[in-house]
């Protein structure tokens, strides 16, 4: 039986937002989230009942994030532009701005693989479907992404060692 779409939003809304933040950065994440769930609502009646709903949502979010990036490339924002929404509260502590810079600096495939693996918790086979390569390539992209993140953001290792 297919559950009401509201349950899908309640169960996966937070994870999809976290994924969007990693792929796009905190400022564009809200837009990508909205586009993702609107598209998902449209397509929901046709989703097979056996489908992995989270992987399906991440797949849609992936496409929406690419759209957002494409638009951003076409209309580059002036550097002094202030984001419209007061999202300060929603963004992880400003102390982690180094982390976001490190995430932003990753090649997009690595950033996506890291988000889908470590934030959404998808299997490499599902990530390969989304990224359009082999399972091995997906595994490598996630591993390389993580390695690069650790290099540029040593904070994670320090924290890990001290805990």
């Amino acid at each position, binding site marked *: *039986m297919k559950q009401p779409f509201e349950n899908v939003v309640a169960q996966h809304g937070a994870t999809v937002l976290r994924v969007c933040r990693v792929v796009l950065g905190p400022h564009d994440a809200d837009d990508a989230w909205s586009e993702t769930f609107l598209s998902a609502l449209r397509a929901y009646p046709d989703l097979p009942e056996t489908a992995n709903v989270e992987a399906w949502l991440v797949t849609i979010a992936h496409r929406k994030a690419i759209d957002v990036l494409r638009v951003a490339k076409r209309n580059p924002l002036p550097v002094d532009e202030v984001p419209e929404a007061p999202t300060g509260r929603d963004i992880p502590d400003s102390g982690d701005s180094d982390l976001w810079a490190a*995430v932003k600096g990753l090649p997009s495939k690595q950033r996506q693989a890291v988000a889908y693996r470590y934030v959404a918790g998808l299997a490499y086979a599902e990530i390969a479907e989304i990224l359009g390569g082999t399972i091995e390539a997906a595994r490598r992209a996630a591993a390389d992404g993580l390695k690069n993140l650790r290099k540029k953001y040593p904070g994670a*290792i320090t924290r890990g060692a001290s805990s």
Partner: protein
Amino acid sequence: MNDIRHDDDMAALLSTPVDAGTLSRLHRRLEQAAERANLVDVAYTTIDSPVGKLLLAATPEGLVRVAYAREDHDRVLEALSQKLSPRILRAPKRLDEVAREIDEYFAKHRQVFDLKLDLSLSRGFRRLVQTHLPEIGYGQTRSYRDMAELVGNPKAVRAVGTACATNPLPIVVPCHRVLRTDGTLGGYIGGLEAKTMLLNLEAAA
């Protein structure tokens, strides 16, 4: 071993906190966009009332379901997902007028509901009976036998009982105004306490 711990650490760092306020703001935005795109086949909300928490659900046609808490709102929504459409969203705006009229009813400021109804959850004889229920005026009662006669099938007393028991729009479609021939309550989807409460409310007006 270390790698795994560090992976977990990085995963924890990247899995940023999402507070309830952010999610409800995004939800409201989704409600608006989905309504504009005509993608909400069933909108719902819940309201507090003197007979407990009520679930209100509407299609674009009109109010399609009123449910008491004892019916289990999650189950009711699952049934709507199966019978009507899984495109179900908590979108209170579509129910504003319904909620207002129900509030007025319980405040004794309203005796007749003026709402668009969607009776698509009922078929055949049940639907026929439910269509005639609003003819029983505020503060009045009828017996199951009276209703059977009213719909032109005097022998269908039990079927009238079933039609009342399966009324998808209790309170708004007043099945609580139908009693046994001997004047005792009979059953009620919201429980006998709720039925008594509604009858007393209307009698005291």
